[in-house]
């Protein structure tokens, strides 16, 4: 009795499953037709960004200004911390229900380009719906996907930098770092500082596990980090050379030991640099102000951002672009384009935003924020001036392939630490990293 009834249920179950799969497949149809962004500005748009309460307040202030300029527009907002933001965005992208205006970063964009969930903005730029004339071309390129099309308009730039506790550096007898240096000078600088530092304080972070420091080392030598196929563009020998440099520094007690590095609390305001236990840290340039605030609470000294060492091919600093794009499921493209144009280019709005998510890409905004009468703290203005200097040196762009976020940083850090903790040989770790990463990239 049971078996025949069960068999009768099977076709029904198969039908339900089929319907579910078909409806899911329907959701994965291609992108909406590209638009030039021209048309009536009005109706409702959803705007999503990442950030905490401080950034939320500043972003909402910009949105209020936008709504004053465009009173016929209703703006609905969504925000979350960086990690949670992308958790939600991934689910929304899977169901083709992304907000119209989504914040994007060059490290993430190709995951969404591959899934055709973002609209190319080139036609909107060509039509004048979005003005990019005040953004340097090399900076604007940060918003391009691996297919060369523009998918978001960068409005804020972070840049990888070294943070130096100059108070500790003076104490150690090496003084402030030079304006530019190469890798030999950098190694010599931290090595000389070692003996003059207080007990429990280290000269430099464990850069071997930091992907940002590796990019700096690689691009300074003209090495392409990712090739056109979206696979690793450097060789195993090059990675061995880089990791050996940092393993030596750790063995000599110059760099943070692996156990301490593994236990370092996350966040620029909690790490060893912010607690005064590190002389040179590896952090984004725009975290200088945040780290300094924690350090001030401990009388831990003064921080200064320093450029990465240059290589034979030139500058080692790369830029990390953040900006707004338009989802392919958006049904109000003209208003979304108007919002992006306003957010990126309106000087008053960006002054209110106070470079909260990196240096402004619009040169007029940058000038306004670094002007003598700017209300920004001196340290924040120093950050922006440093960005200006780096951006004028034509920094190289890294094209992060799809799958980058899912695998690269974790595999890089883990395999390096396998060597640092003595669980793998250098050759084994490099082989493991290459196999693991190339299988997931592209």
């Amino acid at each position, binding site marked *: 009795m049971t078996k025949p009834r069960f068999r009768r249920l099977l076709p029904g179950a198969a039908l339900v499953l089929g319907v579910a799969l078909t409806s899911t497949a329907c959701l994965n149809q291609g992108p909406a037709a590209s638009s030039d962004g021209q048309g009536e500005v009005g109706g409702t748009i959803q705007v999503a960004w990442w950030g905490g309460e401080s950034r939320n307040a500043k972003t909402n202030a910009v949105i209020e200004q936008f709504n004053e300029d465009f009173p016929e527009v209703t703006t609905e907002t969504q925000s979350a*911390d*960086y990690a949670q933001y992308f958790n939600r965005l991934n689910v929304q992208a899977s169901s083709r229900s992304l907000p119209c205006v989504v914040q994007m970063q060059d490290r993430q964009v190709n995951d969404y380009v591959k899934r055709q969930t973002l609209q190319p903005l080139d036609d909107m730029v060509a039509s004048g719906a979005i003005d990019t004339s005040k953004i340097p071309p090399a900076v604007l390129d940060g918003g391009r996907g691996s297919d060369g099309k523009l998918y978001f308009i960068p409005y804020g730039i972070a840049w990888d930098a070294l943070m130096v506790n100059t108070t500790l550096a003076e104490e150690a007898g090496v003084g402030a770092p030079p304006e530019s240096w190469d890798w030999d000078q950098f190694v010599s600088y931290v090595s000389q500082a070692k003996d003059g530092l207080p007990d429990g304080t280290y000269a430099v972070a464990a850069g071997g596990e930091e992907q940002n420091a590796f990019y700096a080392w690689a691009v300074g030598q003209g090495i392409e980090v990712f090739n056109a196929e979206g696979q690793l563009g450097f060789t195993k020998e090059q990675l061995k050379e880089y990791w050996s440099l940092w393993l030596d520094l750790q063995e000599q007690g110059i760099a943070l030991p692996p156990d301490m590095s593994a236990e370092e609390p996350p966040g620029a305001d909690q790490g060893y640099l912010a607690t005064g236990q590190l002389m040179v840290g590896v952090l984004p340039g725009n975290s200088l102000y945040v780290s300094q605030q924690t350090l001030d609470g401990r009388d831990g000294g003064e921080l200064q951002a320093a450029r990465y060492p240059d290589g034979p091919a030139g500058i080692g600093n790369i830029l990390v672009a953040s900006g707004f794009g338009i989802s392919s499921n958006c049904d109000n493209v003209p208003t979304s384009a108007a919002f992006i144009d306003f957010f990126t280019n309106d000087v008053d709005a960006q002054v209110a935003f106070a470079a909260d998510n990196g240096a402004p890409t619009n040169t007029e905004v940058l000038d306004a924020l670094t002007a003598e009468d700017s209300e920004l703290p001196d340290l924040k203005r120093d950050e922006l001036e440093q960005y200006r200097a780096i951006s004028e040196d034509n920094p190289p762009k890294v094209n992060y392939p799809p799958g980058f976020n899912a695998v690269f940083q974790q595999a890089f850090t883990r395999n390096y630490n396998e060597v640092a903790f003595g669980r793998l040989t250098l050759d084994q770790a490099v082989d493991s990293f290459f196999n693991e990463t190339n299988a997931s990239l592209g």
Partner: protein
Amino acid sequence: MTTTLSAPPQPTRVPRPWDARTQRPAGNRVVKGVIKHAVLLCVLLIMLYPLLWMVGASFRPGNQTFAGLSLFSDTYTLQNYADGWSVGNLNFSRYFVNSAIITIGQIVGNLVACSLTAYAFARLEFPFKRVLFGMVIATMLLPQHVTLIPKYIIFNQMGWVDTYLPLTVPHFFAVDAFFIFLMVQFIRTLPKSLDESARIDGCGHWGIFWRIIMPMSLPAIGTTAMFTFVWAWNDLLGPLLYLPSSDLWTVSLGLNSFLDQTGQSTYGTLFAMATLSLAPIVGFFIASQRLLVEGIATTGLK
């Protein structure tokens, strides 16, 4: 003839070596008791220290939040509480209200639906009962990430995103297999003769369920309510996905908004609001502690 019964000889108790322990002087017992409690207090302090530190840090000025491991500070301030409570365009009380709505919805849903389902599995006979119960239990093995996107797609198509509905309505359909299992186990321990007596007295299934089973299942109901409360109150992923608008945010989303790994986190206000958000959980736990312990003990979930 009379028989005189004499009392049997009392066995002579042979002293045991461990008797010495029970005959130790009162002073020794006091000392050992003090030592034992001192050790227990130390362990308690170690376990509670992170929590106490968080409470202490919530009263420090922002730039001294991570000034050290001490519970105390040179200066104290209530600014973190004031700043945290008036977060953004809203008030943190809004997040408490939103959390309360969702939590109460989930508790009511789970209590109604899971208890009815559990009664059916424990007391009724119907085709495929064992298979269906096995399938219900098997859903506990399914990682939530497997169903995350299909669920989101369905709720989005239904227009339920940005409402409380996706976080409350499903609980009225007995989706928490853990609680069904817990209640089934509990109801199975109740004597069936009670049901039979009730049936003789004219009760149907509803009467047996409502008049006999439910009153006797209070420990299991309390356990279900407690666990649902804690899980719903602390849930971050569900509200993150289904409640994007900040006026619908729950306490967990409100707390998350104080963090910013790409910018400036405000840990002082985070700790202040986290301290406040613990109050309902602690209060609910104290109120239902007796039921919780009985529920866990009598269902064998240890």
